[in-house]
């Protein structure tokens, strides 16, 4: 036995559904456009949220302090003699010079990241073999060896070949033997990496033996990172000192509504809803007005007519919300966010596979909900209320 109040609402719901179905072309079109806008907003939010979460999960062990030498506003190689100056600061546990940079492969138009450092002095350096699908890291006793990221191996088209060459700045060739490949599990970090010995990297970049690209510092007491960073900035005024917390903060804000693409998405959505609201608020069609007039003559109350309009708008907007959010999840989880990825990677030739868990936070869903469903409800119910309060005979005539 259904309670009377619920039975009445069910009947109103039936009437609303029939009414929606009578104008199915218009209502289905509105719902699909509505779902598309929600899909776009949802996809962006889920993709960027997933990247932020991944960064948060994996970038906890970045170097505690990174020191880069600056000249004329640009980063340049740092002399290894700076290590001696740094040793005067109490609390520094280890200083590890790194040589790294970018290599543009003209035949494939791809940018690779070259990285060289003494991995045995790094934290977890003895576990690094777990990140490989086969092989080992280049050893100090093995000059001319390299370890490749998945995309590099693929783009160079090595197949089963083990030797490849890169150009030095003077266009002479330097050959490398592949001694290992990064596992697909680390693609999000290492896809474009070529790891090699320090001497090989200096030779490839034509860098002097007493120079490095930057210095990684580890301190004895992590609570003193900021204090030591300030001391370093005072001691070496021509350097930029980056702390672990600054690096971690980058990914908390780098994908946000403030970025250009996100602003465009948001503005598009807002414009779409403003047009929709303007169309709805500018008044009901004569047919809709006549329908309301007839219902009032038949004895329907204003509250009942508002209930119909409320059900209609709720159904259209909630269904669009569910379709949009479900499609956004599937887009990010199963299709690698293929509609957003071309914008995100731009002209990059290396397209690392995104194995990401779409971020679904209640706050994000509520934001999309309040941007989409609530304005639509307001924009449809208010004109219906205005119309249902006028005398029915004046509407029918």
């Amino acid at each position, binding site marked *: 036995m259904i309670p009377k109040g619920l039975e009445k609402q069910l009947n109103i719901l039936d009437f609303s559904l029939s009414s929606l179905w009578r104008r199915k072309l218009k209502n289905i079109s509105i719902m699909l456009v509505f779902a598309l806008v929600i899909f776009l907003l949802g996809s962006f939010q889920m993709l960027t949220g997933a990247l932020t979460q991944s960064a948060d*999960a994996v970038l906890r062990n970045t170097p505690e302090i990174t020191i880069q030498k600056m000249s004329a*506003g640009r980063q340049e190689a740092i002399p290894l003699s700076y290590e001696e100056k740094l040793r005067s600061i109490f609390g520094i546990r280890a200083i590890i010079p790194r040589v790294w940079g970018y290599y543009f492969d003209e035949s494939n138009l791809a940018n690779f990241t070259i990285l060289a450092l003494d991995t045995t002095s*790094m934290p977890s350096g003895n576990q690094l073999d777990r*990140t490989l699908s086969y092989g080992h890291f280049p050893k100090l006793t093995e000059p001319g060896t390299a370890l490749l990221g998945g995309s590099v191996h693929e783009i160079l088209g090595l197949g089963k070949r083990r030797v490849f060459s890169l150009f030095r700045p003077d266009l002479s060739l330097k050959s490398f033997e592949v001694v290992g490949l990064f596992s697909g599990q680390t693609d999000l970090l290492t896809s474009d990496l070529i790891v090699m010995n320090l001497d090989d990297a200096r030779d490839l970049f034509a860098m002097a033996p007493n120079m490095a690209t930057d210095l990684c510092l580890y301190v004895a007491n992590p609570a003193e990172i900021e204090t030591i960073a300030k001391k370093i900035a005072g001691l070496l005024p021509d350097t930029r000192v980056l702390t672990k917390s600054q690096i971690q903060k*980058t990914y908390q804000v780098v994908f946000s509504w403030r970025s250009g693409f996100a602003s465009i998405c948001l503005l598009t959505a807002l414009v779409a809803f403003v047009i929709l609201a303007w169309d709805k608020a500018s008044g009901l069609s004569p047919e809709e007005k006549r329908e309301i007039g007839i219902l009032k003559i038949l004895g329907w109350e204003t509250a009942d007519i508002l209930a119909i309009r409320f059900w209609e708008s709720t159904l259209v907007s909630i269904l669009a919300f569910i379709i949009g959010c479900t499609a956004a999840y599937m887009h990010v989880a199963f299709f690698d966010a293929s509609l957003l990825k071309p914008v995100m990677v731009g002209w990059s030739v290396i397209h690392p596979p995104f194995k990401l868990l779409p971020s*679904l936070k209640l706050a994000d869903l509520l934001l999309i909900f309040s941007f989409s469903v609530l304005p639509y409800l307001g924009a449809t119910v208010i004109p219906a209320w205005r119309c249902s309060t006028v005398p029915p005979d004046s509407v029918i005539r």
Partner: protein
Amino acid sequence: MRPSNILLIIILFFLLLDSALYLHASRLQATLRSDHAVQAIAVAGLGLTDLCVATEARYTRHPALSDAMAPFMDHPGAIEHFPSGSFWAAPADKNVR
């Protein structure tokens, strides 16, 4: 059949679909957790600072190590022209040189 019953069937369909997606998310989360453990070793052992998402420009490959002016450093009056730049917001800490 009442129209509300058809609506109920549609809602049940989405409920089932979203439940399946929830299960998928739970399984994916477990896989990613083991991936993150391996990635954390790579980060610690190699001193990595950034995700390999966009490799076209140095400031999108390594935003954590780039400064705010990096996109405009090609020449005096240069404008930022890489497509991926539109996806990235300004760096977090503007006080960093």
